[in-house]
């Protein structure tokens, strides 16, 4: 079995849409992915370089407020300004979630949206402070989105050296033990290995990689100097740099004067490491094809990755060209959708109108989308730790997860769709030509439209791809 237009959208995009056409061939999918990123013109999210003025205003207001003298009249006013900016940033950032969802609902290139979500999770960096919480959307737009069909090493460098990541994984706290910075201060300044460890364990080689504690330590020393103040660009601060050369995975860096290019070189070497190829091939295949992907396909992705020095577009193409990527959707098996995929694909099948989505006030949006995602166990881009959201189906097949999905499927479609469709017709929109007879029966036998729609959305045929 090869390319199938329904499977193309269900398995590699955000599902079928009754109005947006899907790709007609694997060639077209590849061409779309390699082509211009058109949907961002329609649904914009600011990049970090052009930091959104409201988030920037928030940062400045917060700083002014914190610096003002305690108890002063000034401070009182600054507090009011800060609170206003906070509210504006909250509204603004909720708007970016809507834009991201609208892309999924209205794009003809669903694969790109899936890849953005996948890599944003791979390089998870939810903010740990007010400012970085609101800056997270721009981080994904800047460091992740433009690289999903390009070289992995470029994405790696963009993500790992981004202020968002430096803050999330404590790089801002890390200084060389023998740096000028550490020598000036008696206590509290030292090496923090967090970023170095996670780059090796999560971003590149993988937890089964052959790195040792010594590699972690030396890599952490190499990373010293990388830092970013809140609201500022990343800089390479010579005062924080650990003097001397460092050896990571057999390569030695920084034999002369320390330069940021040493860090970039180390990241490129890690990106091209065969263990990284294996780790990423496995992870991509599991994400799109389920807990036990075809071994031959995984091997193919790994080879393609190595042949192209980590060209992610080529790796995805290899997956789409492989027969095992197009296996039929078997009953009781198949990849179980993660909550945000479940919600996004339901919204797409319902063809939720753009205007309705944008008009919704913040409270309603939280009630209908953000809060249900939390209940389903997947708060929007805020996984529990740097390892991102769980991939295995068993994690998501929990009573709480299923209960929250049912709750959402019963209530939200009526609140967001232009007209709640006839469940019998909705089957075609949501499941395509191959819907199981039992779902047809259930949709017809439902007591009312609302339950009928919910039954279609809750069916294994919709939830497993």
């Amino acid at each position, binding site marked *: 079995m090869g390319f199938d237009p329904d499977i193309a959208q269900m398995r590699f995009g955000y599902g079928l849409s009754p109005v947006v056409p899907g790709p007609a061939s694997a060639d077209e999918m590849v061409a779309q992915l390699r082509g211009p990123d058109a949907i961002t013109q329609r649904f914009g999210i600011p990049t970090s370089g052009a930091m959104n003025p409201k988030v920037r205003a928030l940062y400045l207001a917060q700083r002014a407020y914190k610096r003002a003298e*305690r*108890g002063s009249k000034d401070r009182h006013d600054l507090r009011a300004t800060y609170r206003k900016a906070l509210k504006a940033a909250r509204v603004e950032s909720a708007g970016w979630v809507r834009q991201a969802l609208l892309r999924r609902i209205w794009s003809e290139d669903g694969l790109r949206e899936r890849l953005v979500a996948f890599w944003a999770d791979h390089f998870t960096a939810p903010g740990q402070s007010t400012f970085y919480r609101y800056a997270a959307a721009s981080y994904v737009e800047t460091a992740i989105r433009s690289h999903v069909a390009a070289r992995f090493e470029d994405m790696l460098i963009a993500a790992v050296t981004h202020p968002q990541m430096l803050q999330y*994984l*404590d790089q801002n706290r890390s200084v060389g033990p023998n740096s000028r910075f550490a020598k000036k201060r008696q206590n*509290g300044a030292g090496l*923090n*290995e*967090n970023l170095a*460890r*996670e780059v090796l364990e999560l971003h590149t080689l993988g937890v089964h990689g052959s790195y040792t504690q010594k590699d972690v330590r030396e890599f952490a020393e190499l990373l010293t100097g990388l830092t970013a103040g809140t609201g500022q660009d990343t800089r390479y601060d010579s005062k924080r740099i650990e003097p001397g050369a460092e050896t990571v995975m057999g390569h030695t860096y920084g034999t002369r004067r320390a330069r940021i290019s040493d860090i970039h070189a180390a990241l490129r070497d890690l990106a091209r490491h065969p263990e990284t190829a294996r780790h990423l091939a496995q992870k991509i295949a599991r994400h799109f094809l389920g807990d036990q992907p075809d071994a031959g396909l995984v091997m193919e992705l790994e080879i393609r990755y190595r042949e192209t020095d980590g060209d992610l577009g080529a790796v995805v193409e290899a997956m789409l060209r492989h027969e095992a990527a197009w296996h039929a959707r078997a*009953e*009781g098996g198949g990849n*179980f959708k993660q909550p945000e995929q479940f919600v996004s694909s339901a919204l797409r099948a319902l063809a939720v109108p753009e205007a309705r989505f944008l008009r919704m006030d913040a*409270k309603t949006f*939280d*009630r*209908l989308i953000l*809060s*249900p995602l*939390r*209940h389903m*166990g997947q708060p929007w881009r805020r996984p*529990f*730790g*740097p390892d991102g959201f769980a991939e295995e189906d*068993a994690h998501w*097949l*929990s*009573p*709480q*997860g*299923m*209960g*929250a999905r*049912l*709750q959402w499927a*019963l*209530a*939200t479609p*009526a*609140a967001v769709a232009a007209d709640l469709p006839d469940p019998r017709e909705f089957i075609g929109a949501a499941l395509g030509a191959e819907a*199981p007879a*039992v*779902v047809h*029966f*259930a949709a017809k*036998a*439902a*007591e*009312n439209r*609302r*339950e009928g729609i*919910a*039954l279609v959305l*809750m*069916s*294994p*045929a919709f*939830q*497993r791809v």
Partner: protein
Amino acid sequence: MADLNRRGFLAQSLAVGCSLAASPLVTPVSFAATGGDNRLVVIILRGGLDGLDLLRPPPSDTLMRLRPTLGAQASGLEITGGVQLHPGCAELWPLWEAGELAFVQAVSTPYRHKRSHFDGQDMLEAGTAELGQGRAKEGWLNRMLQHMPGAEMSTAYAIGTDPMLLSRGAAAVETWSPDVDFVLSSQGARLLALTMERDPAMRDAMARALALAGSNGGGGVVQSAGLEDMDALDEMMDAQTAPQGRDARHAHTRVAKFAAERLRDDARVACFSLGGWDTHARQARALRRPLGQLADSLLTLRSGLGAQIWGHTTVLAMTEFGRTVAENGTAGTDHGTGGAMVLAGGALRGARVLGQWPGIEEADLFERRDLMPTDDVRRYAAWAIRESFGLGRDVLENAVFPGLQMGGDLALLR
């Protein structure tokens, strides 16, 4: 039908038709005994509870100087040696009088110096002596379960939507939020079962969800034959999607109520969290809400469990750190070190304030600003576990709380 009360309508329709057994999807939840009768509830108080405001030291010049607004309020709830309980806890007074409430003063985790919520809560829930590099992956409550003979999925519940490190780890823990609630007709439930017939994993999780949703009073599967006004049901279901709007102020009581229901059945361990303790400004006002929620939660647990099971229950409420001894410029307090712990339950030997009082003169303070911690919260948790479930000292000191010295028997329980 104009003035039809939605909740009343729901209650009525449930009373008429709530028939879980009628649905083939709903199989009885299996209840396995785990041995003992004792129950343990852990409440994480997120944000840093001000122990000095919860347990107010006797008025003194130093206190008045350091806490000009907070120190001046009298509650009249004298618990011991001139120490008064915050008036926000007045509802808990009967528990104190019954010997079902106790406090630990000047305790903390081993976390020092940095005073970050994020790190502090990580350490509190991980139960470790040091902050590892990177986030901890396992909580002490989960490690405890790994050593509890007979523990299984339904033994422990993490309740609410707040992801808790405390219960994460290799042992299976059921997670459920009472905010997950829906109404489905029994016909809908039958059809749902039908579509999932050949997908056992999905079917089983769904069945348990229906059982759990039906067990806490809000919704579940209703017999729709008696329903005449579908619009009213629709309207009610709209309301249901608003866990934040609907009874937002009572979300914590729903959590406690659900915990009590599970603990009455086969569960022996439950945990949840309460927020709102980070009182940097106008603390006299800001602390009332979280304290009220804590009191509500404890009272809801007590009434929900009933006297007999409450008699086998111990509740530990713990926070990541205490707060500065001195008030700040906005009549609040900032992140500190030594704090307080709240113990409750019918199993407790209560009506006591445990722990050493370090004093609040400048020389007594930690880094000249915080109450000096005189004990480790983990020691109280470890003894509560030991007395509740009989775990060995070596397991507690090495596996559950690595590196902890449990010291002498605290004899927390009756």
